[in-house]
């Protein structure tokens, strides 16, 4: 019964081998693939192992990271750099050739604390070395006191970006340190200013870093009584947001001012903006009303938009959010607000109300997503027109990759894909592919990094494998 199939197999063998040769040629030229990163990682989780495959820009698997096993976590932290963290030997590895860039030794612990800052703690020497995303040292400090052996892994760190510098809170065991790291100068030092530390260490306050000052707002935002803005020098510029500072800028100027910096403070309390020309403005967004101004002359010379590296996501608190969208096509900032049940876009100084009765789920460079009782709507940010509507999973808008909503990923000029629920949609909101059968690790330039069944690799938008590896699960 298999004789006819054998004949068919022989015929198709030639076809498939020819296809394979053509596929190889395509890989070699790199024309079929164009990833932003030279190398990409696909984490593979099995029952007893975690492996990381590394792919080159042509989509070929070029290796598996060494040291696979529980306890090892690998992160692609830069264009070419992978950081292996935790036990036993933290190290930075070049993702392309798997060569070690910066190696650490026993007793050292590595942590990623932001996309731009990484640290390695040497427990014995009590040193902390800070690295950027290219595994270059941007500063190092020696910590006072001793580090408990029994709590060697009890290491946490938060980073606050303040202009070009980083203000980093490091907690090791029961000790807490506040460190300034200055990448341009490749220096770091521990902050000792008591005026600033008083605010920083107040457990009842939320801290927000912005430019070269910090804003502090109590956690309980419903009945805000006071807040503070503290400069690095320790000067408290404002300590009461309720009533004592009268609006000093005409309300009608709000829409017209080009705000190139912002802080969103949670719980509908306050927002602090740096305007393009005149320092800081403080708002209570519930009323979209200017209530005060903080003047910081030393910031005036900063170029507009200098702090924005991409997209400002809204802080969603109840039904109120504010933010700015960087329109990647026009390299422009579009301010927006969502208040109660309306989504507002400020265009050319005018407010556009997109839709009422919805809950904002997220916003990207070009789209915003709202959940309504009857489904999920996706709007184009710039003109407020509806882009697509999705009804099946009204409560979900699944993120892909690290950049938030999939539609951030531009497949080609003027063409976007996005995901809601488990379905991928094209520009026009047409479902392209249902990915319910695979686990997605990342979505880059229209290509999945995914696992399906016992396989892992790279697949196209429609779930067809471009590169497939067998995943061993034992």
């Amino acid at each position: 019964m298999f004789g006819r199939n054998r004949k068919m197999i022989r015929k198709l063998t030639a076809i498939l081998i020819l296809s394979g040769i053509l596929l190889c040629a395509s890989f070699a030229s790199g024309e079929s693939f164009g990833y932003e990163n030279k190398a990409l990682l696909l984490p593979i989780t099995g029952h007893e192992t975690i492996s990381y495959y590394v792919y080159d820009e042509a989509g070929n698997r070029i290796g598996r990271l060494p040291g696979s096993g529980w306890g090892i976590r690998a992160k692609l932290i830069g264009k070419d750099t992978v950081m292996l963290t935790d036990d036993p030997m933290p190290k930075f590895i070049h993702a392309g050739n798997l060569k070690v860039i910066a190696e650490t030794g026993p007793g050292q612990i590595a942590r990623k604390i932001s996309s731009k800052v990484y640290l390695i703690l040497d427990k014995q020497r009590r040193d902390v070395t800070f690295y950027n995303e290219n595994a270059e040292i941007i500063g190092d400090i020696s910590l006072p006191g001793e580090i408990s052996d029994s709590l060697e892994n009890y290491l946490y760190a938060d980073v606050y970006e303040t202009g070009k510098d980083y203000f980093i809170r490091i907690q090791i065991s029961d000790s807490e340190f506040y460190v300034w790291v200055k990448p341009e100068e490749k220096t770091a030092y521990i902050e000792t200013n008591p005026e600033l530390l008083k605010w920083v260490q107040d457990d009842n306050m939320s801290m927000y870093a912005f430019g070269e000052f910090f804003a502090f707002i109590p956690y309980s935002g419903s009945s805000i009584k006071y807040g503070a803005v503290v400069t690095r020098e320790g000067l408290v510029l404002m300590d009461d947001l309720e009533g004592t500072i009268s609006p000093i800028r005409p309300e009608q100027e709000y829409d017209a001012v080009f705000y190139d910096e912002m802080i969103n403070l949670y719980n509908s309390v306050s927002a602090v903006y740096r305007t393009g020309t005149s320092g800081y403005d403080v708002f209570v967004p519930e009323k979209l009303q200017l209530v005060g101004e903080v003047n910081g002359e030393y910031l005036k010379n900063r170029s507009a938009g200098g702090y924005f590296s991409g997209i400002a996501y809204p802080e969603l608190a109840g039904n109120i959010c504010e933010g700015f969208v960087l329109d990647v096509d026009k390299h422009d900032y579009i301010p927006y607000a969502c208040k109660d049940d309306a989504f507002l876009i400020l265009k050319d100084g005018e407010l556009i109300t997109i839709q009422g009765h919805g809950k904002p789920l997220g916003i990207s460079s070009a789209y915003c997503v709202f959940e309504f009782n009857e489904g999920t709507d996706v709007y184009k940010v710039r003109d407020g027109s509806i882009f697509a509507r999705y009804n099946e999973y009204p409560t979900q808008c699944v993120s892909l990759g690290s950049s938030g909503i999939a539609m951030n990923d531009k497949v080609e000029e003027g063409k976007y894909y996005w995901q809601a629920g488990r379905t991928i949609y094209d520009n026009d909101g047409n479902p392209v592919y249902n990915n319910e059968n695979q686990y997605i690790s990342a979505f880059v330039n229209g290509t999945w990094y995914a696992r399906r069944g016992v396989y892992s690799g790279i697949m196209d938008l429609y779930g067809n494998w471009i590169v497939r590896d067998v995943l061993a699960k034992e």
Partner: protein
Amino acid sequence: MNHKMLKTIFLAAAALVCLPAVSFADGEGSAAAGIPQMSYEEFPRIDGSLACVPMIETLAKMVTGCTDIQAEAVLEDFTNTNPCYLQLAEGNRDILLVYEAAEETKEQLKKYDPLDIRELGKDALVFLVNENNPVQSLTIDQVYDIYTGKITNWSEVGGNDAEIKAFLRPETSGSQTLMRKLILGDAELVEGQIDVIPSMEGMIDELKEYENDSNALGYSVYYYASSMHNIPGVRLISVEGISPSNETISSGEYPLVNPFFVVTNEQSSEKALEIRDWLLTDEGQGFVEECGYVRAK
């Protein structure tokens, strides 16, 4: 022709495993009348050994007419050799296509209802070295001595004057089960000379990439090493002078042959039993063979 090209050609050839399924699903000829037919939703919850994956996917396509993507997805909850026995015993699977369970797993299974284990095909434990290693064959005793530390240098088995680095799979793996059963028994393994490699693929990759590449010795099962992860730079060696192949495994000439099984239990669905029964027919055994495995009978 570079390695990537060779790999792609190999993958293309390996894809042929699926071709009979496409033909059958189209209902070609009356000979296919005995093949079970069912909807994708009716396809039983299946699991097994990694080396059985191509056969499982081909089976899914053949009996349901599903797409390649759907066929891969039937193994979404794949657990591999030893865990899948317990999944079946606990009622989470309907059918397994699987290699032999480890002794520890067999002990665990005693507290469950007995499983129906039937021989589906034959495979073999095979040994691999880097292509630069001049050794062509080992005896079973030599392998035993290497893993128990009595032989530590390749020159003792006809190779270069170089320390042997022996790779080992975890005790819970299917290939290690065969290693224990066919070679090592309860022998204590020597520390330092042996590296445990978590995955079957990793074992073969390490043989290719190990820093003293020609020094390493590893093992796998024949189907996986020859059909699923056949990479340049790694070579199968003979055992007792017999090279592993479908022919020498089928004839029993190759000394390290072991069966693999179709396993069900009383809780298995009717569709699972239907598939099991068909796989054991002459037609089903032909399917096993056509998928690249060695039939049981």
